[in-house]
C-alpha cells in the first residue's frame, strides 16, 4: 500500500496507462484524440460510481448500528422513557440518517441524495450540522497543509535534484544521494514525531498543537496569517523533508541520464557554456516529466496525512475522519471517504487529459 505513489513509479504508471488507452483509442474510427478523451471520461465516471458504491457497501457491511449508540447516549442523559417513544425516536433517526428500508433501497436513496443533491445527511459528531458542512470547514486546512508541503517539496526536490545531478561526480553529491535514498523510504510521520520532540518540546521554537493561536480570530489580517504559518511550520516541514528527498532522487536520475546523452557532448564540443546547458537543455527536459508526478501528488492531498494532522491536532479532514470513526458517525465517514476518492480520481483525470498537451513526447508514442 503506498501512502503516496513515489514520483518514479508515478511516471511509469502514467505512461503505461496512457499507452494502453491510446492503443485502444486508435482502434476506433473516431479521431484518436477525441476517442481517448471520451474513453478517459467514461472510465472516470465508472470509477466514481465504483468508488461511491465501494464506500457505501463498506460502511454498511460493518457491524454496529450508530442509532443504538445514539439511543444509549440519550438513555444515559435520561432524555426519554417508554417503549413507544423509543421506537418512534429510533424510526426518526433512522430516517434522518437514511438507515431505513432494505439495503438496496438505502443504496438507491443514497445515490440519489449524493449525486443529485450532494447531501450526505446530518453528522453525528455535531448533530444536526450536515456532514458536508463539517467537511467544508475542515477541508481548507488540509488543502493548505498538504498543498504547501507538496508544492514546496516539489520545488526543493527538483531544484536540489538538478544540482546534485549536475555535480554527480563529486563526493558531496554521493553523500546527499545516499542520505535521500534512505530518508525517502521512511514515512514522514516519524520525522514529525522527532520534530515535535526536538523543535517543539526541547527547543520550544515552534508550537505543537492547533492551526493558529487560539486568541486570534480568523480573517485576512497579518497576525492571523503569520500565526497560521507559524503553527503549520512543523507539520509542513516533516512532510516537505520526505517529499523533497523523493523528488531529488527522481530528478537526479533524470538529470544524470540527460547528461549522458550524445547531443549534450556535441553541445559542449561546440562551445555552449555550462550555464546555458544547464538552464536551456537539462532543466527544460527535467521539469516536464516531473509535472505529471506533481499532479499525482496533488491528487493524493486529501487522503494523506491523517497521522500528522492527528499529532498536531490540526483541524483538517484527517482529524475529522478520526473523530467520525471513533463515534461511528456513518454519514461523515462516508462523506469524507467519498470526497477523498473523488478528488483523487479527478486529479488523475486532469493529469491524463493535460499530459498529452504539455508533453509532446507522450503524444508521439
Amino acid at each position: 500500500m503506498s501512502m503516496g505513489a513515489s514520483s518514479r513509479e508515478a511516471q511509469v504508471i502514467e505512461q503505461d496507462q496512457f499507452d494502453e488507452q491510446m492503443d485502444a483509442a486508435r482502434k476506433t474510427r473516431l479521431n484518436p484524440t477525441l476517442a481517448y478523451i471520451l474513453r478517459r471520461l467514461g472510465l472516470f465516471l465508472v470509477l466514481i460510481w465504483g468508488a461511491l458504491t465501494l464506500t457505501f457497501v463498506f460502511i454498511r457491511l460493518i457491524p454496529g448500528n450508530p442509532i443504538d449508540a445514539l439511543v444509549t447516549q440519550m438513555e444515559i442523559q435520561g432524555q426519554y422513557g417508554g417503549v413507544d417513544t423509543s421506537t418512534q425516536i429510533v424510526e426518526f433517526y433512522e430516517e434522518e440518517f437514511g438507515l431505513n428500508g432494505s439495503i438496496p433501497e438505502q443504496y438507491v436513496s443514497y445515490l440519489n441524495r449524493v449525486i443529485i443533491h450532494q447531501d450526505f445527511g446530518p453528522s453525528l459528531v455535531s448533530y444536526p450540522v450536515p456532514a458536508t458542512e463539517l467537511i467544508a470547514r475542515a477541508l481548507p486546512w488540509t488543502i493548505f497543509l498538504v498543498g504547501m508541503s507538496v508544492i514546496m517539496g516539489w520545488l526543493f526536490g527538483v531544484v536540489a535534484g538538478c544540482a546534485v545531478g549536475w555535480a554527480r561526480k563529486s563526493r558531496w553529491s554521493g553523500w546527499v544521494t545516499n542520505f535521500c535514498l534512505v530518508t525517502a523510504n521512511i514515512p514522514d510521520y516519524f520525522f514529525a514525531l522527532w520534530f515535535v520532540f526536538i523543535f517543539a518540546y526541547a527547543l520550544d521554537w515552534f508550537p505543537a498543537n492547533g492551526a493558529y493561536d487560539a486568541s486570534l480570530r480568523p480573517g485576512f489580517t497579518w497576525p492571523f496569517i503569520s500565526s497560521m504559518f507559524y503553527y503549520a511550520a512543523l507539520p509542513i516541514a516533516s512532510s516537505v523533508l520526505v517529499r523533497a528527498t523523493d523528488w531529488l532522487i527522481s530528478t537526479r536520475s533524470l538529470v544524470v541520464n540527460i547528461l549522458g546523452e550524445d547531443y549534450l557532448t556535441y553541445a559542449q564540443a561546440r562551445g555552449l557554456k555550462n550555464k546555458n546547458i544547464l538552464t536551456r537543455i537539462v532543466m527544460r527536459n527535467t521539469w516536464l516529466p516531473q509535472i505529471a508526478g506533481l499532479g499525482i501528488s496533488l491528487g493524493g492531498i486529501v487522503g494523506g496525512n491523517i497521522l500528522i494532522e492527528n499529532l498536531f491536532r490540526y483541524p483538517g479532514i484527517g482529524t475529522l475522519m478520526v473523530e467520525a470513526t471513533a463515534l461511528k458517525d456513518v454519514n461523515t465517514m462516508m462523506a469524507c471517504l467519498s470526497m477523498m476518492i473523488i478528488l483523487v480520481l479527478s486529479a488523475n483525470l486532469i493529469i491524463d487529459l493535460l499530459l498529452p498537451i504539455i508533453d509532446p513526447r507522450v503524444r508521439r508514442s
Partner: protein
Amino acid sequence: MPFRTIWKSSPKFRIGVIIFMTLVIAAVFHQLIITWYLGPDVNVPEAGSSGAIFQDPSWKHPLGTDRFGRDWLGMILVSLPVSLTVSVLAAIISVTLGSTVGFVAGFKGGKIDTVLRMLTDILIVVPTFPLIMVLAAYARALSTVELALAISIFAWATSARVIRTQVLSLRERPYIELSRMTNMSDREIIIQDILPNMIPYLGINLAQATISSAFALVGLTVLGLAPRGLTDLGALVNLSLSWAVLSLGNWWIFAAPVAVLTALFFGLAMVNMGMEEFYNPRLRGTS
C-alpha cells in the same frame, strides 16, 4: 535469493539487516531480557510493576515507569514482538496475494487481465488508509492474524501491479517461446522459467510491503483505533501522548518507543535500498 552476494556487495543491506535482526532477536528473547534485569518473578505484560508511577530512569528501571507503575523498557520489549509479527505477517499475506493476482493477470491476459487491472488500479488510487481505519475501528476484537489480514486486504495492489508488469515483459522473452516449442506444459514454464526471474522482485516487494504494513499498523495504533488488548509500539506512543509526558517532563517515555520504531523503519528502508541497488545498478548512490 542470493542473500550472501547482496550481503557482500551492499553496505546498506548489511546495516539494515543487522538493525532488523537485532530487533527480531530482542523480540524473540524479550521474556529472558525482562527476567534478567527485573528479577525472576516478573509477570509480563504488567512487566514488573513496582507500584511507583512515573519514576525516573534507574538501574532497576532503565526507562523508568509509566502512569501505572509498569516498567517502560519492559513494555517496549513486550510490544516489539507484536509489532513485528503483525507487520511481517501482513507483508507476507499481501505479497502472496498480490503476486498471485499480478501473475494471473499478466500470464493469462485478455479479459481476466482487464478486470484484475481495473480492480488493482482502484485500490492503488483510492486512499486506503482511511478504509483500513474504518475496518479496524469497527471490528474491535481482532486477533493479530486477523489484523494482519485486514491490513493486507488493501496492501496487495502495489505488489500485483509490479509483478504483472514483470510477467508481461518476461512472457515475450525468446526462451519462453523456446520452452513452448519444446512442448513444456504451462505449469513447467511457470516454475522453471518465469519464477526464478521473479524472485528478486518478490524480495524487494516483500521489503517494501513490510514497511507499508508496519506503517499502517503504527498508524492504526497511534490513532487509538486498533483492537483492544493489542499493545504494540504505536500504542505506546499513543499512551505517552495521552499522558502528556512531554509536558510532564519525562520525555523518555515518548522518545523510547519512537526511537525503536525509527530504528525498525530505518533498518527496513536500508534493506530495501540495498536490494534495489543490487538489482538496479542505476540506483547506486555514486554512479
